[in-house]
């Protein structure tokens, strides 16, 4: 437990450093957000008034101090474009990204662990070479292109899946957790659940493919390494069935490396969510980030970037905690 507390305390200066860098970047960036919002017709008086309202006429360090001192009590200011509190916008969009990332992770795990394990067990066979080749293709596919191709074929040509958004127009889901899949199940709204699944499938496959490719390779090499261990030979010598040896002795030990890589690849998932959400007009925080950058809504941009940093840190911490569940020998 101490280690976790120490890591949280250790993250504070890092996050402060990031927040200052992001703040500096946003404030020193070319282009005046006030002019962008008011347009070229704005009078100097109007511009001065808005600059004063937003506190942009104050020294930079003072502005940063005000940003941080308000942030610690949860006040991140108002979005310049949407006119609403930034934190409200972020939390409105966050469930969509969480749902997309979880589904992508599921897609990646469902593809990679069986293929990686089977490739290792059937080492140097045609299946193994094909699996390794497919994994290399998966790593090399640009996810925005894969998304566009899925939209073109599955959405446009064959009309199998919806191409944008989170749910079909006209279907309402009573918000409880704001995760559509969970809420629709909790309220027994199966039409809503099916629509949410259909809308999630293409973005999740797009985002999960690269991750699946990486995890397949890691699973394969990790299983191969564990298979060489003495305890596996002992398990076989005891007369255990191959299924039990694989499940209880090989996979469980190989999973430590796989979970580590899944944790390390979370960054790739966050990177990819920005692009995937843009391709599918999926209303998550990645899409919001690109929108905020395009209209120079610096208040929203800086909070979103910081937010991504915090999510990254929290999930890495959770991954560390997960180790103790998979391997009780590991103590944090």
């Amino acid at each position: 437990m101490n280690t976790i507390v120490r890591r949280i305390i250790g993250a504070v200066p890092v996050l402060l450093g990031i927040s200052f860098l992001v703040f500096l970047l946003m404030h020193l960036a070319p282009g005046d957000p006030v002019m962008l919002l008011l347009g070229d017709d704005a009078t100097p008086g109007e511009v001065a008034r808005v600059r004063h309202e937003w506190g942009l006429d104050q020294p930079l360090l003072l502005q940063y101090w005000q940003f941080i001192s308000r942030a610690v009590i949860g006040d991140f200011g108002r979005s310049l474009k949407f006119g609403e509190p930034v934190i409200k916008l972020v939390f409105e969009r966050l469930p969509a990204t969480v749902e997309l990332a979880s589904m992508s992770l599921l897609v990646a795990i469902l593809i990679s662990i069986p293929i990686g394990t089977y490739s290792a067990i059937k080492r140097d066979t045609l299946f193994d070479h094909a699996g390794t080749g497919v994994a290399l293709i998966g790593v090399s596919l640009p996810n925005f292109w894969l998304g566009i191709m899925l939209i073109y074929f599955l959405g446009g040509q064959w009309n199998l899946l919806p191409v944008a958004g989170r749910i079909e127009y006209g279907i309402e889901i009573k918000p409880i957790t704001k995760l559509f899949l969970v809420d629709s199940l909790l309220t027994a709204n199966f039409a809503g659940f099916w629509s949410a699944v259909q809308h999630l499938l293409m973005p999740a496959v797009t985002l999960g493919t690269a991750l699946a490719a990486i995890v397949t390779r890691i699973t394969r090499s990790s299983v191969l390494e564990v298979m060489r261990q003495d305890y596996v030979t002992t398990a076989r010598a005891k007369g255990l069935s191959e299924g039990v040896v694989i499940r209880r002795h090989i996979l469980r030990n190989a999973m430590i490396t796989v979970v580590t890589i899944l944790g390390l690849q979370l960054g790739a998932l966050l990177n990819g969510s920005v692009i995937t959400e843009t391709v599918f007009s999926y209303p998550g925080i990645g899409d919001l980030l690109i929108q905020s950058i395009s209209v120079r809504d610096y208040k929203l941009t800086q909070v979103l970037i910081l937010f991504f940093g915090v999510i990254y840190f929290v999930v890495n911490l959770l991954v560390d905690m997960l180790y103790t569940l998979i391997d009780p020998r590991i103590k944090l």
Partner: protein
Amino acid sequence: MLRLRYFKVMVGGIILAALVVCGLAAPLLAPFDPQEQRLESRLEAPAWLGGRAQANLLGTDNLGRDILSRIVYGSRISLLVGATTVVLAGLVGCFLGAVAGYFGRRVDEVVGKITEIFLAFPFLLLAIALMAFLGQGVINIIIALMVSRWVQYCRVVRGEVLSLKERDFVTAAKALGARDYYVLLRHVMPNTLASVTVVATFGMAIVIISEASLSFLGLGVPAHIPTWGSMLSEGRSYMNRAPWLTIFPGIAIFVTVFGINLLGDGLRDVLDPKLRRQI
């Protein structure tokens, strides 16, 4: 297995060499000027796909520009951004990693803290944040990606140097009176080259995809310069009418990145199999 490794290196090397030739000889290879607009023949499908574009092997875009020529010229940006970023990020990362690993103590602590800040962020998001600040431009994209990528080299080189500096040949060089910078440059760093080459190869594939991603998001290279990412972004609006606008630039990115990854895979197996776990 040995044959497979060399096969990977060979095929990957050929694809990378093709990219280099394409980029360097673009004016000779491209059948048209990539900027030349012919509005009378806009959105023409390639003849071999049943379209009317006889001279335009891969069809034309919404302004009547030749897709093949734009892909050939687009390779220049991928190559330029990929190679320059890898070299610059490699230089910065290797220098800091080597110094941190070799001298240790305070230097290592300071470099460690800096890398921690950079690692606290998914690298493409860092590049997006930097591009939001720097604005579009080839040099800006190189800076943004370099700032986001140097950490990878720093980590690998630091780890290598930490182990290399304890080896007998380093002790022997020091015993003979060699100065620290001489030992580092002549004895330690050459031994990290294999790992750095592998990291750089995979790094180039990542940088090329990242440049395309940033250009696709409208944050990369200005619209008038043909790049594979911006071609995909422009083509998206015409996808149902003219799918070739998005299919061919995507294939170009995929084949390039696949080739470089294949090369990296082969190089890793040949040069430094222990890196298999790290990359």
